[in-house]
């Protein structure tokens, strides 16, 4: 528990440090614009270092994109306008939230298709799985079991008496 609290504190500390650093380099008069800028730098993907957003990256192109984002937000462009600006130059790749089109639609459709397929297969299996039980056989088996038990109890009684 102590460890958990400590790591939580450490995480909060470092996170606030990075936000603070960004605010110092890119100052805004308007709180809303500052918020838009923070969101954008989190959502825009660095085209050079592909597994980082531009807030986290110090690649030259990421710095250029950050500066451009700052400039555009400061001029009063909306979030969508900035995203469109970047997508026009670097393609959908640059935004972590790609639009749904003929290529990306499969990312949504395939998992649903697999899920449906699995459910169908499972339901079919269940129907087929239950073995057909003959009632006569069952009665016979139960009778045999009862007999065996009787013998058993008798045997143990005799053992005790002996």
């Amino acid at each position, binding site marked *: 528990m102590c460890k958990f609290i400590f790591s939580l504190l450490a995480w909060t500390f470092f996170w606030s440090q990075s936000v603070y650093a960004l605010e110092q380099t890119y100052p805004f008069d308007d709180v809303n614009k500052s918020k838009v800028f923070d969101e954008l730098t989190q959502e825009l993907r660095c*085209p*050079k270092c*592909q597994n980082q957003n531009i807030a986290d990256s*110090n*690649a*030259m*192109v990421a*710095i*250029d*994109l950050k*500066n*451009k984002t700052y400039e555009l937000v400061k001029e009063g462009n909306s979030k969508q306008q900035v995203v469109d600006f970047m*997508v*026009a*130059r*670097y*393609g959908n*790749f640059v935004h972590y939230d790609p639009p749904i089109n003929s290529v990306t639609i499969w990312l949504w459709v395939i998992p649903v298709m697999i899920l449906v397929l699995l459910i169908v297969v499972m339901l079919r299996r269940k129907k087929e799985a239950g073995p057909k039980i003959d009632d006569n056989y069952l009665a016979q088996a139960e009778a045999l079991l009862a007999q065996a038990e009787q013998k058993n109890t008798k045997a143990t009684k005799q053992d005790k008496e002996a």
Partner: protein
Amino acid sequence: MKKLRLFIPISVFLLTAVFLYKGLFSDPTDIKNANLEREFPEFELPNLMDESHIYNKADLLGEVTLVNVWGTWCVTCRVELPFMTQLRNQGVRIVGVYYDNAAEAAFGNVNLAKTQAEVEQMLAQLGNPFQFNIYDVKRDLSLDLGVTGAPESFLIDQNGVILAHRRGAIDERVWQQQFQPLIERVQ
């Protein structure tokens, strides 16, 4: 019908295997370029060697041109300079866009005279493929072109439409496969 169903798992497996195998060798830097088949962006930038001479888009039009984004600090650019010089000797028009990594405060101050000296030295040593070099002072043109680093090359036609975009060095093979057919098509 029953027998046919037995092939479903193996075909699913094969399809997945092929898909993953292809992914194993795919190039992560091969991002589909948003600029393809588009107009070259407008710009107004000085000559690298003579700041008083300003170029704009019109200076690139008229013939098929290879625009090469490069810098002396970039190692891969060194590698492609000799081949590019060969191309120039074959009559390809090559224009340089100098992608300066010093133009951002985080990388130190700009010292244009030093850069010019470096450029002159490097081009004398490895060959000069460039008809002229545009100095992309703040890398604005590069940003408009969707450049992620150096070297990158753009092939544009007589009217300034971008025909091809290559991230990374151009060599004989890339030129023959990717650029030559495009040039033949527009000429």
